[in-house]
């Protein structure tokens, strides 16, 4: 049996209450949402928080809704809701792509988007998804609310813009015309973290790419936003040669590390393939030509 070290525990009933609990216990306190990253780390005693603030009762943070030209996703929205959301399927099909290959149904029933983003595991899929679609996140703290872009969100490996005493409350995604998106992942086995994964979002208008987002999971110490791919594609008409070129750029710009999932050269190769495939599929969806 794996046994965590002793720690305190309380269940928050409101966001303000959770913030107060974090303030009262200081930096050794941790929020726990779905717990699918934190609890295993605690059981292995790789994480030893002194106090847990459980935010699973915060239903106020569980929603996916349209607000004008923005989709707002509450931080406590479970993976399974992202997977099944008709609203997301209509505008950002890559959520369903990614969720179909994130862990397994048991994890997806419990794990949350806020937890995934805040854990900021470089191999985690939703961070790449949110970076590709150029989402913003809302962070609430004792001093009030602030909105940061995904660019600013990832500070380093397992470190985000969410400071001690703060809570990520919402993900905001602007709806723009001509959008198509896709997430491609290769894993060693169903439910495993990616060997590498690529999230692509394109916005096509007038026969050319108006904008493109391309982000990678498991391809560096943090989620990798490959800005050069956007620079290459913007203003160009879609085409297979362009996707190949984008793949080559992504393979060059990623920063994978050798581990039990594979050596660096294979991972770079894979990033190239997945970038090409994700862009191809995203574009087909934007043009409503998906096979």
């Amino acid at each position, binding site marked *: 049996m794996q*046994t965590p070290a*002793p720690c305190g525990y309380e269940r928050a009933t409101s966001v303000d209450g959770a913030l107060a609990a974090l303030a009262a216990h200081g930096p050794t306190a941790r929020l726990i949402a779905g717990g699918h990253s934190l609890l295993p780390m605690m059981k292995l005693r790789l994480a030893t928080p002194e106090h847990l603030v459980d935010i699973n009762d915060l239903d106020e943070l569980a929603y996916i809704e349209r607000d004008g030209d923005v989709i707002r996703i509450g931080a406590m929205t479970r993976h399974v809701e992202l997977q099944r959301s008709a609203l997301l399927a209509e505008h950002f099909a890559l959520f369903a792509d990614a969720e179909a290959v994130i862990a397994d149904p048991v994890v997806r029933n419990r794990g949350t988007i806020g937890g995934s983003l805040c854990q900021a595991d470089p191999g985690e899929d939703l961070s790449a998804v949110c970076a590709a679609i150029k989402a913003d996140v809302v962070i609430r703290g004792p001093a009030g609310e602030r909105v940061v872009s995904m660019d600013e969100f990832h500070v380093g490996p397992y470190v985000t813009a969410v400071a001690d005493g703060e809570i990520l409350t919402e993900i905001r995604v602007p709806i723009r015309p001509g959008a198509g998106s896709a997430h491609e992942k290769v894993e060693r*086995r*169903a439910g495993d973290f990616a060997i590498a994964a690529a999230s692509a979002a394109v916005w096509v208008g007038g026969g050319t790419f108006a904008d493109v987002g391309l982000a990678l999971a498991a391809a560096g110490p943090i989620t990798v936003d490959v800005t050069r791919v956007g620079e290459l594609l913007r203003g160009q008409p879609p085409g297979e040669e362009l996707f190949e070129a984008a793949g080559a750029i992504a393979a060059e710009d990623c920063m994978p590390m050798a581990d*039990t999932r594979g050596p660096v050269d*294979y991972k770079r190769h894979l990033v190239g393939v997945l970038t090409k495939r994700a862009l191809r599929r995203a574009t087909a969806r934007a043009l409503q030509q998906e096979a």
Partner: protein
Amino acid sequence: MATTVEQPASPERPIGFGRLRRKEDARFIRGQGTYLDDIRLPGMLHGAILRSPFAHAKINSIDTSKALELDGVAAVVTAKDLETLGLAWMPTISYDTQAVLAGDKVRFQGQEVAFVIATDEYVARDALPLIEVDYEPLPVVVDARKALDPDAPLIRDDKPGQVDNLATPTWEAGDEEAADRAFAEADVVVTRDIMYPRCHPAPMETCGMIADFDPKTGQLDIYNGNQAPHVHRTVYAHVAGLPEHMIRIMCNDIGGGFGNKVPVYPGYVCTIAASIVAGAPVKWIEDRSEHLTSTGFARDYNMHASICAKDGRITGLEVDVIADHGAWDSTAQPTKFPAGFFHICSGSYTLDASHVKVKAVYTNKAAGGVAYRCSFRITEAVYMVERMVDALATEMGVDPIELRMRSFIAPEQFPYETTTGWTYDSGNYAETMKVAMEIADYEELRREQAAKKERGELMGIGVAFFTEGVGAGPRKHMDILGMSMNDGADLRVHPSGKAVVSISCQTQGQGHETTFAQIVAEELGIPPEDIEVRHGDTDKSPYGLGTYGSRSTPVSGAAVSLVSRKVRDKARLIAATMLETRPEDLAWEKGRWFVKGDPEQGATIEDIALRAYSGEELPAGMEGGLDAQIVYDPPNLTYPYGAYICVVDIDPETAQVKVRRFIAVDDCGVRINPMIVDGQIHGGLAEGIGIALMELISFDSEGNCLNSSFMDYLIPTAMECPEFELGMTVTPCPHHPLGAKGVGESPNVGSPPAIVNAVIDALRQGYPEVDHIDMPCTPDRVWAAMQGRAEPPQ
């Protein structure tokens, strides 16, 4: 001469053989099984083990004082304490020694260093980091191929006279001169280095024990899910000097064993010692990481093999193996066979000659070499020979099935004496191969493959044909630690005609409570639901060697069959008295003796049972009751076999392997419960997919285990398994009373070579220079093979 027969169709509600839902499943699927952690005894203390972070290090000192200060800690046991009890070291199952707790130095990462006893499992774990151990790291050896290098550090300096890392000297089988001649005369010779990498059986329930020593009576009750409780009891009696008759081992329900739960582990000895010292029950259960890093691994065989052909037929095989045993030789096999049954590697073919050499080395890795769903290294043997036959077929430009067909042992050659000394009992190999080809539609698959090749797609078809020797074994040939490998059975038919049969093997999920009831039902005509199978409790079952090596049906199954026939014979005598006739005038039909020529006149087994216990007359001189006992000594192993065909697709860009189809045609002789057999085959095929595609226990150059959780040690899921396509032929075993052979391990033995052969076949569609890839065929390793850089795993 072997005869293949039709398996009769299964009756709706079989009283005897047939598809019958498992009796034990009701409690399992409702979550009502009793596994070790479900058992809580009053006043029970809890143990936890401090393990070495280093693969090789001298221990300068161990300071337990801070741990002892923690509230709730009762004691901290170290090697010094065990030395006073004579328990610091213990023998392994292979006549080597192993440290119970490390005193002088640690020899692998995860080795047991101290044992904490506390009031609950949380406190016990909290105490571990408070124990201060002063380690002095030493150079490590992780690669078996470098273990005998002159500059390799000496791992076993505890053994007098040990000057290098040789664990067991070269062991040979076959005829080297004859093999050399076969190669000299051959038309084609193929040589490969083939590694069967280290993997782990990884049963869902990890290892653990509750020891409950009663200081008042001296009775030691042990709750411990292991695969050989009677042998464990004997070992504890010998090692700890405890009286064997005062030890009771209860296995209860076991969450899988797969060979991993055959050995006696240091944690067990610590738990027993702790209970004796504390005078209270002590529970210890390892966590998943402890399980993967310290308990019995499987395989880790480096095989240098050559195979040859003359006139289009396979004629010779030579194999030179370096086995990696880890820090101790605790490999599991009959004692006279240091390489297990590896020398069955001549496979299903009529070779002119073969020769096998195996030597084993120590490394700074966990010990094991257990028979993971395998009859003692047959998995390695079959993998090697089936890879080699494929390589030979490729070299000869012959279809791999065609080469096998040309070289099979023919039905009329059975019993067949192999070039390495086995006597195969029965088989009709070509017939079984044909059934597999029909199910697969082999010709059509080859056409599809050719069409796909034109389009740049990588489709592969892999074939494997295996013969296993299972059901160890005859006492004239084999033993474990001096104990004959025989099994007992004890059958008691109660006055109401319901029965209890006690057997010496026990289920870890194989369905024994159903299968063994069906054997009694078949022999006596008592419905299976009226037969209780007792097993896994040394106080309630006859002595025997346990469940592993697919030996339950071959050995215990035969015992149950014969003990039932003993009861039937006694029933005949009683029936004769009841029917006022002579025994020889009676005939048997299932459940009833009747008068020949007057079938209306008869006595059912129920009537006879009541009579046996009643006050009414019995045959002169006969004791009352309807019980019997037996000990069964198998005259030979049983030799199940099978033809497997696997179809894979490889993504040409990502190098991912997908198993699209898997056809398994097994011949395990007569099938007692075909549904359970199918289930066993499904499970073993899933394991084979895991081994072939993803499972690996690997180490970095400092001896750190890189696969210490299910995040890093991948076991397959349903998502990786296709709908298995099963078929069967039935060629009864001539010496087993039921004609049955073992089957549980066949799919694990036969599937890895079929899958790897398919992967190589697929790769060769686009990369014809690929001639081998070692397991596991993970995407990165398959991609490396595409780049011409196939390497064995580290």
